[in-house]
Structures are given as C-alpha cells and as structure tokens.
C-alpha cells in the first residue's frame, strides 16, 4: 500500500459504454494492492442510454460508498458533455480525462435541446487539468471500438496512487484469463491511451 488517504475516482458516461467495466477494473486493481475499496454500480437496464456514473473509492478504510461533493481526485469521462456534467464533483486541483467522442442523445436529435458547442472548453476555462483526446478513434485505429475502455484506463494510469504498470498488468491478467487473443491489442490500447493523455 502506497498511500493511506482515500482516493476518489468518478467514472462517468452513458449506459452501455463500459463505464462499469472500467470502474470494476480500477476497483479490483486497488483491491489487489491491499486497499479497502468501495464501488457503486448502476445495475439493471434502467440506465440504458442514460447518464451513468460509478464511484470508486479506496484507501485504508472507506466509509460512505458515495464520493462526497467536490472530492473526486480523478474524473474519467467517456463523453465530453458527460464529463462536464460532473465538474462540480472534482476536487480543486483534481484531474479530468475526457474521451472527445461526442454521443448525441435522441432528445437533442429531435430538437428539444442543444448539444453544447465545446463542453471541454468550459472545463478548461475553470483552470482544471484536462486531458482530452478521442479514445474512440484511437480504439478504432487499433482495430476494435471496444478498446475504448482500455484506452481510457491507460490514460488514467499515470494519475493513480499506484504505478501505471500495476494497472496495466491487472488488465493484461484479466484478458489472459478470459480472452487471451485480445491481450496484444489491449496492451497497445493501454499504451496509446497513456500517450494520448500525456500529449493532451
């Protein structure tokens, strides 16, 4: 265990995007490091297409499973507007990672609401450390849109209280056990995410 203070990570996106899986991998990795961990899940189909968040908290002892307002150390946003939606949850000095791939909901398509011009700009304006990049395009380039998750985790890996390699190894182990064929491209995706976050 490297750090005793509670680390709070908010993973935000849309139902069906893999928010839960990313949160689960972070939680499992922290668990393997010996931390006490709590993670909220939004289960069931009720949130399909709707706003989804998962709170991952780890430290020596975690009480409330919900991250108190304004105490998230890291927000991993799977979509630009869904990242902006949770800005208030971020601790001053916290870091925000954003997948720039926009997902327009039906409610905007049918003309009832507008999608903001540039959600990320409104976050940057507040002086927040933001790393925004198109994780979906990166995943597509590597060959599978489902790699978005690993790209985002790669991006997060240098903002955690444990080393990036620990997270990387946890992901690789998961794939070695379940889908060994996908180990190679996931490693690629992880490193690409790391690079994209560093470069943005």
């Amino acid at each position, binding site marked *: 265990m490297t750090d005793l203070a509670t680390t709070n990570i908010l993973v935000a996106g*849309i*139902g069906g995007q893999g928010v839960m899986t990313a949160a*689960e991998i972070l*939680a*499992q990795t922290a*668990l393997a490091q010996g931390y*006490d*961990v*709590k*993670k*909220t*899940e*939004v*289960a*069931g*189909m*009720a*949130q*399909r*297409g*709707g*706003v989804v968040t998962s709170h991952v908290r780890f430290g020596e002892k*975690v*009480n*409330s*499973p*919900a991250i*108190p*307002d*304004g*105490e998230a150390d890291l927000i991993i946003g799977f979509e630009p*507007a*869904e990242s*902006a*939606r*949770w*800005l*208030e949850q*971020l*601790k*001053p000095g916290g870091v925000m990672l954003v997948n720039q791939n926009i997902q*327009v*909901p*039906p*409610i*905007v*398509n*049918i*003309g*009832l*609401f*507008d*999608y*903001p011009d540039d*959600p990320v700009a*409104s*976050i940057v304006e*507040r002086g*927040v450390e933001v790393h925004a990049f198109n994780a979906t395009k990166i995943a597509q380039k590597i060959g*599978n849109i489902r790699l978005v998750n690993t790209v985002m985790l790669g991006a997060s890996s240098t903002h955690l209280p444990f080393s990036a390699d620990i997270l990387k190894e946890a992901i690789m182990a998961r794939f070695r056990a379940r889908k060994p064929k996908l180990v190679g491209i996931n490693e690629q995706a992880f490193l690409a995410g790391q690079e994209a976050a560093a470069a943005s």
Partner: protein
Amino acid sequence: MDQSISAASDEAISNRAFMSGNEAVARGAYDAGCKVAAAYPGTPSTEILEYTSQYKDMYSEWSVNEKVSLEVAIGASLAGSRAFCAMKHVGLNVASDALMTQTLVGVKGGLVIAVADDVGLSSSQNEQDSRFWGRFAHIPVLEPADSQETYDMVKYAFDLSEQFNTPVLLRMTTRVCHVKSVITSGNRVNKESLGFVKEQTRLVMTPANAKHRIPFMHQREATMRDFSNSECPLNTITPGTDTRIGYVTSGPAFLHVSESFPDAPVFKMGLSFPLPTEKIREFAATVDQLVVVEEIEPLVETELKAAGIKVIGKDILPLQGELAPNILRPAIAELLGEPIPQDLPEKRSGISVEVALPSLADDLFPRPPTMCVACPHLGIYYTLSKVKNTIISGDIGCYTLGSGHPWNAMDTCICMGASMGVALGLDKGRAPSDDNKSILAVIGDSTFMHMGMQGLLDITYNKGNVTILLLDNRAVGMTGGQENPGTGHNIHGEETQRIDFPKLCEALGVNPERIHQVNPYEMPTLFKAIRKEVKINEPSVIITNQPCVLVDYYKNKPSFEVIDDKCTGCTNCLDVGCPAIMVTRRETVTKPNGSTKELAFVRIESAVCTGCDLCPKTCGPDAILPIEGFTRD
C-alpha cells in the same frame, strides 16, 4: 447463535472477495443452508436471484410475481426447509397479503424476506419505506450497511427466524444492493429439512384459529424487543469524542454519518425493529443532543419521541432521498449554530468556496434512459402516436418510456398491471365529451402475467370497451432480459412450457375474433389493426410478437444508411425514436405560403443499427437503404 457478527472481517485476507450487496445476500442465504429461493425481478434487487441460481444445490425460481414468490418461500418453510425470497420495495405491497397472515403462523424452516428500497428513486415508480412492514406485520427488521454486513446478517436472520418463530425482513437499499465492497465469507452449512408436520390450528388460518395466534404474535414482539434491548449483537455504539451530538442511524446512512462526522458517537441499529429504545435512552444520556438519521420516513424518530426521548430528525433532514454527506454536513452545521459549509470559505471538507469548481450540469441537456436501438416497442409507439383521439392507459416496463419524446403515447402509469383496471375505469367513467375517444391499454408480457391477467378478466367480464396492446417481447426487458413463462425457459435457461398468449386471452374471455398477433415492425398492419379494433365496442387484444434485442437469439441484419442526396430533411424517421438516427444538419425553409418549416437531415450510426428495417418505412423518398456488402466486425 453467532454472536460475532463482524468477526469474519478479521479472517485471512486471502478469503476476501469483492461483492455487491446483492451477491452477498445470495451468498449468505446459500451459506445459511437455505434450500429454496424465489423472486420476481425488480431494481435494485434483481441480481439476488441471478446469483442464487448459480448455486446448484439450492432451488431458485423466477416467480410470476412477488406474492407468489413469498408463498413459495412460505411453503418451503412449512416443509421444514430454510427459505428465502427477494423483491423490490413495491413488490412487498403485492406480497403483503401473504405476509400479514403468515406472521400469525410463524415459520418452520427459517424464512427471510429481502426487500430493497429504491432510496432516491433510481428506477421505480415511488419511494417507500419498507421498515413500516416490520411494525405492521410485527416481524423483525434487519438493516445492513454494506456487503459484509449483508452477508453476516442474512445468515443471522435465518437463526433469528427459527429462534423467535417469525419471518424476518432484511431491509436493503439501492446503496447496499449496488455497492461492491470487500467481504470474507464462510462455507455452506447443511441444514436438514425438518419435514412437514400437520398442525391445522396453526397452519389453517380460519378466524377461530387465527384469533389464538394474535397473542402469540404480540408476545413474540415483546420478547424480541427485550432481545433488541439486551444481548442482540447488531445494535452497537461507536464511541466518539465530540459529544455535542450523538447519532442514531441504520443501514447505509450509518456510513454517511461516519464519513461526515468521524468524531461523533454513533448508535447503529442493525436490528431496527423492535427498536432498542432503552439502549438508545442510555446512549442519549451520554451526549448533548440526539439526532436520528434515517432514510425516508421518521419511524425511529416518532417512536423515540413517544418514549419520551428528546431527538431531532426530520425537522432538519429531508423526507426523501439518500442522506449523503452533502445533505448531512450543512444540516448539522446549522443545528450546531456553526456557519453552513456552503457559505463558508471552507466549503465542504476543507475546500474553499473561491476555488471549488462550479456546476455545469444546469446548463446541459438532460440524458434520460432511452429505448434500445431497434427495440420492438419503437414501431408500436410510432404507430400509437399517429392514432388520433386516444386515451392510453399505460403500465410499467421499458415501454413506459413511450410516455416520453418523441412519441408522447402514454397517458397514465401507476403500478404493475394497473393499465387494465384503469382502462376499464376510464371507459366506465367517461364524460360525454370523451365519447369520441378510444381507450387503449398497453402492457408488457411480464407485467401481464404479474398482475395484468386479472384486470383483463375484469374487462371481459364487465364488457369494457378497451383495446389492449400486449407487448410480447419474450423477456423482462426492463430489468435486463430475465426469463418468464412467456419465454419458455426457466431461471437456468432450461426449457419449460411456454405460455400461449392468444389462448390465454381467449380463456380470459376475449372473443377469439378480437385477438390478433402482429409484427410490430410492420407498422401499416399494426396501424390498421388498431384503427379497426378501437371502432369495435368489445374488448380486443393485439399481441405484438417480436423479441427484445437483448435476447441471445436476436439476429442482426446488415445496417442501413441514409443516402444524403435523397434525404429531404422531413424528420419523419426521427419520430421513430431509434437512438441510431442522428441529425447531421438543420435548415429552416420558407414555404410559398410564407410559413416556415424546420428541416433536419440525418444519418444512421451504422455500428449500432441492427438493420431492423423500421425507420425506412417512415421515409417517403426511400432515402434509407441497407448498406451494400455490409459486414460486422
């Protein structure tokens, strides 16, 4: 009885598992030697039975509704086995008829009912406090805060049930069911079934027999109250140095209190009914003021006040939603006469207001849940939105989303099965001004079998003029696609008899000529069927018959694309409501008569379009075509 409720957490770290509260209940029931588990799905409790069904040496079933699930558990208990059922909060309303009399009978094998309150209404039609049932039915209520406690308490609940001869209620909330935390579990104990023993005076609840059970029930409650006040290991005090306020709390609210006020003394009720009033009275004497932090209703607060203990509760805390730190901290600061955190330079936990990040959420569009791409309900609601002069009595399921945009094709929704009776009432109570209106009811397959069938019988028996759309999508879509008697498979996916809906409706009194099966993707056929049936003064049932896209056997076809040159921007396809259809650009045109029209040109997200061929049917200029040579990765 196991007196060391949390001792498990001290065990070897290698035995640790990371489990949700739902998985922990299942594991706890299994380890307690439970033989029979039954449930009807419902958020946030659904996954409990999905987990129990993975244990091979324990019987699990999806019941058709919660009342049946409790009755199955009661039967198993009377057979002498440990038995369990799980439901969401509103499920216990349905099951309550059985509960209110079973409390007189008591149990043979331990009987535990897990009930999950959707505190904060993440996915329910109301927010209600199941702790009331403990008072109403005179049965104990246990309230775990996290997965370890859930696991320990469910095992303990079986012991309590047998010790006191009572059904036991395990009250969970969304924050317990859907939070994963670290737990250490043990192994399954083997509980031999005691066998059924005939005992009519106790098991046959006629007035004469029931009368004699009432004193037993009250005596049992009195004994349990003594227990709650004495050796019960679940009611504990966490000492604290800041004695200005002592907290009385239970369930996940305990965790929020510990997070918010780490130095305060806290009385935690694991067994919150019968209330450990005397223990709390002693605790009250050690602090300046007592604050009750309970989620939803002021039950404990009212009972403590009645016992003459001075407490503060709902005067400063809300009557709905989670009592998370962002609610607790300012309320307590105000009570103590301290500056309220929000107004301080030191906002929240040490964050100053000058640097705290603002909310951008208020300026953003909302993102409510949507129906899936290609959902069979889309064509139904597109069609319903085009039928004029209707009153549509709705029901609960994915199809409740039809009340929203772009369809606006549902006018009422209360509880499962209500679409039937409400439609009949709308018909019988109609005003002369509504004489030209057609009354329709929309109900899903699972909802129909849960509570809708009796309503249909009432419609046919009383000659209602209602046109019913029975949406048979071969799944309980809303909760994740579980099996039901309409799918022909049981909880393990094994084949069983599949209910025949046309025959069922006929048996319930619908004229066979008024029963139709329609493919909901064939919108013109559906439209004609509805138009025809609403004109006939007789109950009709239109059964749609295409599966939810979540079922394993759902087949994708090549995706469609929009040929940009052909698209006129008419927006018809957007009225289908398929989330795969995206607007690329908007234009405002002025017609010759001077009026303006908003055009929206579209494209289809080919990666998610399943090729269901629904939206092309709304496109006049045939601009939506299958992608030639399309392959999926």
